[in-house]
């Protein structure tokens, strides 16, 4: 995240790198820099890879307990239904949360685009919108948690609707994801404020916006899997 020039500016003027599979071999056997991206971006990708394994293990654990229990699994479609005008609409809150998160991914992609066009005011503005949508998501999740705990009496160790593992999987997976969203909101706000203050203007390096973006899109990506495998399955 420092503003000094990264080695990839030198790579841009060097002889053209071979593409495709030959490029793969050349990049790995070059005895030099392997990833031709800024180090911050490479490190963020590697962090996200480790996070993939955490969420992947959580979801695999969820699959294992759900597949091995002999007690019926509570129907998520009914558990997460919302009443609208006296009618139960299945999964409505979760659908709204999904749309909020996808919208935030869209605004984030636009923010990265603006930052690389050196339009830092609009980039910061779009990042604040992204953070606001993320905060909305966390708020709705807090509502959902309180509804499940207070009204439906669901606990990590048991619930009146069926398999006890429902509560433990739900609170662990959505809780860990919610923490990621909260962290992302803080990360976004910090970088957006620095952007407005002109911190990156001096070095002319706006890579940090793309790095925040990678993290944010990953949070959305994880939600795609949670939505499909936990709520819809």
């Amino acid at each position, binding site marked *: 995240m420092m503003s000094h020039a*990264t080695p*990839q*500016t030198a790579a841009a003027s060097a002889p053209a*790198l071979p593409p495709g*599979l030959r*490029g*793969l071999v050349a*990049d*790995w056997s070059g005895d030099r820099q*392997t*990833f*031709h*991206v*800024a180090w911050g971006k*490479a490190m963020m*990708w*590697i962090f*996200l*890879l480790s996070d*993939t*394994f955490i969420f*992947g*293990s959580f979801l*695999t654990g969820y*699959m*294992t*307990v*759900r*597949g*091995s*229990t*002999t007690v019926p699994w509570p129907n998520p479609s009914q558990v997460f239904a919302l009443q609208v005008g006296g009618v139960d609409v*299945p*999964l409505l809150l979760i*659908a709204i949360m*999904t*749309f909020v998160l*996808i919208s935030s*991914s*869209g605004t984030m*992609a*636009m923010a*990265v*685009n603006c930052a690389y*066009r050196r339009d830092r005011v609009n980039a910061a503005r779009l990042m604040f919108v992204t953070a606001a949508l993320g905060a909305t998501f966390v708020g709705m999740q807090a509502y959902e948690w309180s509804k499940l705990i207070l009204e439906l009496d669901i606990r990590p160790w048991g619930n009146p609707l069926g398999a006890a593992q429902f509560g433990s999987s739900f609170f662990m997976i959505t809780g860990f994801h919610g923490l990621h969203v909260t962290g992302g909101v803080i990360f976004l706000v910090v970088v957006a404020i620095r952007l407005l203050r002109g911190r990156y203007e001096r070095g002319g390096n*706006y*890579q940090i916006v*793309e790095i925040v973006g990678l993290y944010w*899109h*990953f949070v*959305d*990506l994880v939600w*795609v*899997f949670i*939505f*499909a*495998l936990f*709520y*819809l*399955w």
Partner: protein
Amino acid sequence: MSSSVSTTGGEQQHPIRLYLMVWALLFVLSVLSYGVDYFHLQGLLRWTLIIAFMSLKAGLIVAVFMHMAWERLALIYAILLPPVALLVLVGLMASEAGHTHLSRLLFFR
């Protein structure tokens, strides 16, 4: 995808139109996956559709929003190949879960 390659100095700059199209497509796919639940589709059809929409959404986010489509193979393989190990874990645990389920049915009911 290769029409908009412009990675000068590692910066990813692509037309806004592309982002808007992917954004709209993600919305459509989300509506469709919500429809799977709304119209009470069951069984194999439900699971196939859920997995299909999930994979499409995940692919679009990684390829376009996270710019993976324009990265070099060295980075793509380093990030996308290791999660294959997770699929092996899923396979192992699925058979483990089936085994536990059967023994519970036999001995604990």
